[in-house]
């Protein structure tokens, strides 16, 4: 890959697509963190111990999107669980729970996977050849995924938060 760092591209694309969460006041400004091999963006829901987390593993260009129990999952030593309790739910999992109420989610989830996989395949091809992928390929991958995440949040954010509140008893 060229000079542009994949983590910078990750920050640019996801914050651009998800900025609406902050401008309408329902989420706090993003918390951004990075190391050489990962980057993360957390949008905390205003007045709730719940947040949306986007986490990039820069070693394989995979972005995972979670709904997290903020006070626990944002601790540096916590992974998926804390004291035996799951504190990190995949957005995809939460959306799957909504299918019964919103049948169109099923098709959207399928399309999300297909479109991201199409871009990620190109990334994997480069990595398999022990080459870093081209900047534009990485940007397209992140942009596509970010737009899908934005789509789901525009459509179903209240339901997503309701599910998370019930899950953690908040």
């Amino acid at each position, binding site marked *: 890959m060229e000079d542009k*760092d994949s983590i910078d591209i990750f920050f640019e694309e996801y914050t651009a697509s998800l900025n609406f969460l902050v401008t309408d006041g329902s989420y706090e400004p993003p918390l951004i*963190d990075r*190391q*050489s*091999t*990962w980057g*993360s963006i957390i949008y905390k829901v205003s007045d709730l111990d719940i947040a949306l*987390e986007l*986490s990039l*593993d*820069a*070693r*394989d260009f*995979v972005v*995972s999107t*979670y709904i*997290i129990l903020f006070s626990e*999952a944002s*601790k*540096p*030593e*916590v*992974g*998926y*669980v804390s004291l035996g309790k*799951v504190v*990190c739910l*995949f957005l*995809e999992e939460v959306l799957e729970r909504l299918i019964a109420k919103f049948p169109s989610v099923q098709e959207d989830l399928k399309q999300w*996977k297909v479109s991201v*996989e199409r871009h*990620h395949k190109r990334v*994997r091809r480069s*990595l*398999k050849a*022990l080459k*870093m992928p081209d900047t534009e390929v990485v940007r397209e991958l992140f942009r596509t995924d970010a737009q899908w995440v934005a789509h789901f949040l525009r459509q179903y954010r209240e339901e997503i938060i309701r599910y998370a509140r019930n899950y953690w008893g908040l």
Partner: protein
Amino acid sequence: MKTRVEPYARRIGAETIDDWLAGRKWTLELNAVWVQEMMKQGRRVIDIGPDFARRAKGVAPSTAYGLERKLLKGYLNYERRFLRWRKLRGGNPEIDRHEPWHYIPDGF
């Protein structure tokens, strides 16, 4: 959740490739150099396994992790700290999501 590696390393007081890179940009080449350097120094290498939760969502195995496993094959100070059941289930109970049947070890 940043990645699984960092939270676990913090818990046990270990270092990760990020400590070695010290702000440098990650590349596959540097990843390989790091593994070779750790082996040269005789360091204990702890493997917490792949992210099974991610794999179960259909994410392809990590090329970097595959490269590390290849380089570490036969290394005496390699320590495996995860359990696996078939391709998509397993993990490290301290950081990963689990149900009891996720942790039936290989060969059961």
